[in-house]
Structures are given as C-alpha cells and as structure tokens.
C-alpha cells in the first residue's frame, strides 16, 4: 500500500464561460515528489494550479490537499506566482514582502513577532538575498524579485511548494542555480512546478504531468518514446523535437520518435 497522497484529484472538471478547460483529471501526488506540469499555453496547467491552491473551485470532481479542501490548508503550502511585476511602485520593503509569507489567519495588529522576522531573514539568506531586506521591492530586478517571492513562499516551511513558470525572469545561467535550490528544498518539500520548458526540467524533476485539457501523469522524469506517444495531445512530436534542438545541451535526451 502506498501512503495517502498529499494531493488527490478525482474526476475533476472545470470550464470557463462554457468552454471546458480541464476534463476528467485524476492525479495523486505522493509526499516528496517533484512534479513538472507541462503543456501548451492555454492547455489548462495554470488553471489546474489555481484549483490546487483553492483560488478556483472545480465544477465537478474533488481536490484534496492533505485530505482536505485546498482553502483550508493554506498555512501548509507555499506559492510562487508567475508575475513578479505586480505593484512595483508599492511602498514595501523586501523583508515585509517575505513576512507576508508568514501571515496566519487571525493574527492581528501592525507587528510581527521576533520568530517571524527571524524566519523571514533565514528565507532571504537561503536565496542569497539577505542584503536586500531593507530595500524597496520596486528597486530590485525581475530576477531578484523572483528570489524574494520564492523566499516569501518558503518562509513558513511549507510541505508543498507550488511554482508557476518560476524561471521566466531568470537568465539561463541563473536557472541551473535555481533548480539546484529547488532540488535541495525537495529533500523536505513536495514540489509542483508549472513550466513549458520540458528539457531544463527533465534533469531535476521526478515525475511529469502533461496537461492539455486532460492530464497524463508519468512517475518518472525520463521522457520515453512511449510517453511521447501517450502524451500526444500535450506534446506533439514537432514541439518536443523543436525544444530538443533549441537547447542542444547534453541532457537526458529524449528519444526521437522515429528511432523506436
């Protein structure tokens, strides 16, 4: 028997304006997994992420995170949004942004405990951003802000970390370091990362979920020819090969379809 999954999605259906976006989604993620959610733009991967975060409600089916509806476990999950360019003029320091990751329902008054401040500083240190604590968030570059948002997400030691296109603002060299960090975090944390960048991911993740209206889950990162076959709707052969060519770095290379 496998232990009960941290995320359990059953027969999920979601539509927007009458247009089905996700259909017949079944997924169970075990603790310690490192899942890449890949798929074409508009394929529903971000929608599925928002459903898992409790920001959207499924029209049919159920989602359980730690066996409960997603909205009720907010303090056990971390989230790094895709857009780091929101509100860049907002008068708030980096440290205060990270402290938002330690918010707990019902804690009031304009103050933070010493424990929270310490946790926020530690999170910044892990992202090598400790010197930026007192700077205004708008002064940072996109990549630095991304690190701050990761610090905000991990400040409360989440058991699951969700990331939406986390490397969109980081240059290629920074990306490797970023995924190394995720790999370290993965020793204690289940990670689910949305990306369209299959190849960079394939060296780091443990499993892949392909989302294109339907979901295909593969419990290994090795992208096999078999898998390509099954995930036909979400990764047309041409797309995969183009990505393969575009990178041209030694990866766990996809087997080409023809070579089978």
């Amino acid at each position, binding site marked *: 028997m496998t232990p009960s999954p941290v995320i359990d999605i059953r027969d999920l259906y979601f539509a927007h304006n009458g247009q089905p976006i996700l259909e017949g989604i079944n997924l169970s993620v075990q603790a310690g997994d490192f899942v890449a959610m890949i798929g074409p733009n508009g394929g529903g991967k971000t929608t599925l992420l928002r459903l898992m975060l*409790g920001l959207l409600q499924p029209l049919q089916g159920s989602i359980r995170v730690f066996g409960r509806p997603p909205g009720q476990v907010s303090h056990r999950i971390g989230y790094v949004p895709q857009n780091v360019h929101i*509100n860049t003029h907002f*008068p708030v*320091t980096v440290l205060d942004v990270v402290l*938002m990751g330690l*918010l707990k329902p019902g804690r*009031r008054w304009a103050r933070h405990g010493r424990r929270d401040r310490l946790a926020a500083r530690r999170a910044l240190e892990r992202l090598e951003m400790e010197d930026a604590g007192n700077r*205004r968030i708008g002064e940072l570059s996109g990549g630095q802000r991304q690190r701050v948002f990761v610090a905000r997400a991990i400040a409360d030691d989440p058991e699951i970390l969700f990331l939406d296109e986390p490397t969109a603002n980081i240059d290629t060299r920074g990306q490797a370091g970023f995924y190394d960090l995720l790999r370290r975090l993965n020793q204690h944390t289940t990670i689910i990362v949305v990306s369209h960048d299959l190849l960079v991911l394939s060296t780091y993740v443990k499993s892949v979920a392909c989302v294109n209206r339907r979901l295909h889950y593969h419990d290994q990162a090795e992208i096999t020819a078999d898998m390509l076959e099954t995930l036909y709707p979400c990764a047309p052969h041409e797309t995969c090969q183009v990505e393969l060519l575009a990178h041209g770095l030694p990866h766990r290379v996809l087997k080409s379809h023809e070579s089978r």
Partner: protein
Amino acid sequence: MKAAEMLEALQFEFIRNALLAGLLASVICGVVGTLVVVNRIVFLSGGIAHAAYGGIGLAFFMGWAYMPTTIAFALLAAMIMALVTVRARHSADTIIGVIWALGMATGVILLDLTPGYNVDLMSYLFGSILTVPPTDIHLMLGVGAAVCACVLYFYNDLLAMSYDEEFARIRGVPVTALYFFLIGMVALSVVVIIQVVGLILVIALLTIPPFIAEKHVSSLLGMMALSIVLGVFFSVSGLIAAYAFNLTSGATIILVAGSGFFLSLLIEYLKQRRFQRNSKMPGSGSAGRSRHTS
C-alpha cells in the same frame, strides 16, 4: 500678515475649530487615502462621495435625521460599488460612473421637491470649514479614532491584500470581506468629512498627500504618517492664506495642496534628470579618454 495678528486670530473659536477640523480631516484622509491610492480605488471613492449627495436629498425630503440617512445612503451606494468591483477590481468604471451620476442627480431632484428648502450645492462641494459646530468635531474625532484603530488592527492583512491580493487569499486572509470593509470605511469617512470641508476637499486630501508620500517611504504605515503630515501642512497653510487674503477657505486649501502636488512632480522630474545625467557621466568620460589615446 504679522505673527501677532495670526495669534490674535487663534482667539476666535471658529478659527480654532477650523484648524481642528482640518487636522482631523487630514488624519482620516491620510490613513484612508493611503489605502485608497494603493488599492487604486480613487475613482470608486469619488463615486461614493458624489453619490452620498443622494442621501442628503433623501434626508431633507423625508424629514429624516441628516447624518444617519446620509451615512446609510452612502454605505448602500458603496456596497453596490464594492459588489460590482470585487470580482474585477480594475474594470468596473462604467457602473461606478453611473451610480456616481445617479446619486448626485437624485439628491438634486429630491432637494428640488422639498418645499421651502433652498438648495446650496456649493456648500456641499466646498464645505464650510469656518462654521464647523463642535458636534461635528466630536463626530470626526470618533470616526478618526475608529478608523485608526481598525487599520492598525487589520494592518498586516490590509498590506497583504493591497500588495498581492492573490497571495493574501492563499495565505488565508479574508480578502473579500476586507475589501467590503475597506470600502465601507471609505464611505463612512467621506460622509463625515464632507459635512465639514466639502466634497472637493475630501477628494483632494484623500489623493494628493498619499500620492506625494508614496515615493518617499518604504512602508504603508510610513505612507500614512507622511500623508497626515502633508495634509496638516496643506490645510493649516491654506487656512492662513485664506484668512490673510480673505479667500474661500476650502478652495484655498485645495490650491495649496495642488501646488504641492505639482511641486513634487517637478522635484521628481529634476531628480530623475540629474540621476540620468550622473549615470551617463562615466560613459561619456571614457569616450572622451579613448579619443585622446587614439
């Protein structure tokens, strides 16, 4: 005008009351206005302030008590606006515009229909800070204290909601309830202050000090504090100018605040230009040197 004359003016109770009213309005507007500016609900707040005129018309027409009727009417209009904006925060301009106009028109018509009442729209627009009765000062004091206490109590949640609503929601902040609460607070503050300083001055004090303050601080609390200081400065210097040159007080305060607004824009512009020139310096310097060596 000499300082002695100024001190003499302080002997008049109406001058002292006017200063006190300006001070209290600055505190309330500094706190609420900061939240209004960072949440980008300036237009919505203007809508509430104008729609509230319908409440005044209703109070006179029905012969009901002025303050409770106006507050109830403004809260109703505010909640409708909150309802239509809560899903799509930045895209409900049209409906706000309609409620804005409807409220104002209803007020005018109801006052027309009220026998024996002579409509004075000007006093609603510009208020009469020089004739503030002590009861209104007490009311502002109460509302000001309540607003400050509520904002400090919910400070972290308000900050998280204002900065990143989605993340706040995920962290379990009751964003929707808080948004309605914020709009309700805006409505209550606006109605209480309009009575004293007029609608136009409310909007000016609600937006100008926070706008100037935003660039010079690194926290919401700092923005509120600096807004209050600026608001007090504008209203006191405006009152002094109005007294010295015998001008309409509300309009003078607004002119002072408006001048401050453009002055801050100018300073910002000059600062930016100097920054750009300084950052260009090393580039042009090296270009000059390379020309020498070649």
